[in-house]
């Protein structure tokens, strides 16, 4: 058993499952929005605004945003623990890794909060 406190669920199975479930949600959202754009050749502001003004679309988009957060966090955490290690960077690795993880987290949480503000501001 390897202990780690910065992974999403501190458990490999949990992170693994969340990454896959979030990928399905993201794919569903992208397919839907892609399909909407493709079937509305003369897409205008009112149609776009009308789509995102509906509660179900906001909930769907929020689910996609949270999935993006989860998916990207698991991915960025994996990148950090693969490449920013003492093997690659020597003694400074722990602080470089922690800094990278904090910046990743700050960027992702900013995206989510900002997007919620946009969604419910329409």
């Amino acid at each position: 058993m390897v202990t780690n406190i910065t992974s999403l669920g501190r458990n490999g199975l949990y992170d693994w499952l969340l990454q896959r479930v979030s990928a399905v949600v993201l794919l569903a959202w992208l397919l839907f929005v892609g399909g909407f754009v493709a079937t509305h050749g003369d897409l205008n502001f009112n149609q776009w605004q009308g789509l995102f003004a509906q509660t179900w679309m906001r909930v769907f988009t929020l689910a996609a945003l949270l999935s993006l957060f989860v998916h990207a966090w698991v991915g960025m955490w994996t990148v950090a623990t693969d490449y920013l290690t003492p093997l690659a960077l020597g003694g400074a690795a722990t602080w470089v890794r922690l800094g990278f993880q904090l910046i990743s987290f700050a960027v992702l949480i900013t995206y989510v909060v900002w997007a919620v503000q946009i969604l419910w501001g329409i």
Partner: protein
Amino acid sequence: MLVSIYRYNPETDTAPRMQDYQVDLPEGKDLMVLDVLQLVKDQQDVTLSYRRSCREGVCGSDGMNINGVNGLACITHVSSVVKNGKLVLRPLPGLPVIRDLVVDMSAFYAQYERVKPYLQNDEPPPAIERLQSPEDRAKLDGLYECILCACCSTSCPSFWWNPDKFVGPAGLLQAYRFLADSRDTHTQQRLSDLEDPFSVFRCRGIMNCVSVCPKHLNPTRAIGHIRDMLLERGV
């Protein structure tokens, strides 16, 4: 044929280097890579170091990187790997080099030891032996044959980056060999030891291990089975 071999002696060299040797191959014979190494050592350079023992793919001593692909020198035909008349031999990637083609396998063995590669059974031993049905025995096929040559784990980037945390394909193949064994009673403890974010889940399924295994085993499939067992237990 030009043979380029990784040379490094930590007692005299400051850095590793590639040394070229011209080897005349006997006509009408397709030598193994190990035979070529032996020719170089016998005829040109007695200081060349490499591990070898059985010379028939059973002991797993002579795992090395042959023209960019890990394999056992003793069962790899020169004709199957040589490109443009050149044979390039390097030590297994990702492990510290002790000398020339000899690597320090401690990290590899430590991960093997971690999965407790032995039968654990708390029930009193029967008078004769622990019986197993032919069907249960068949589940161990493709798992027990591993010779621990380390070709798979040292071709795995996840093992290169985290050799102290990720068990690696060879260790995980053995982990599943005992998870799948009907006579082992420590299945739950074994699974608990593997469910952290590194031990199993660093496998990203790129299957380098499968493509290099000289015994044609499939660690990726075994890792998938471990994940299935964890999922079944955890959901």
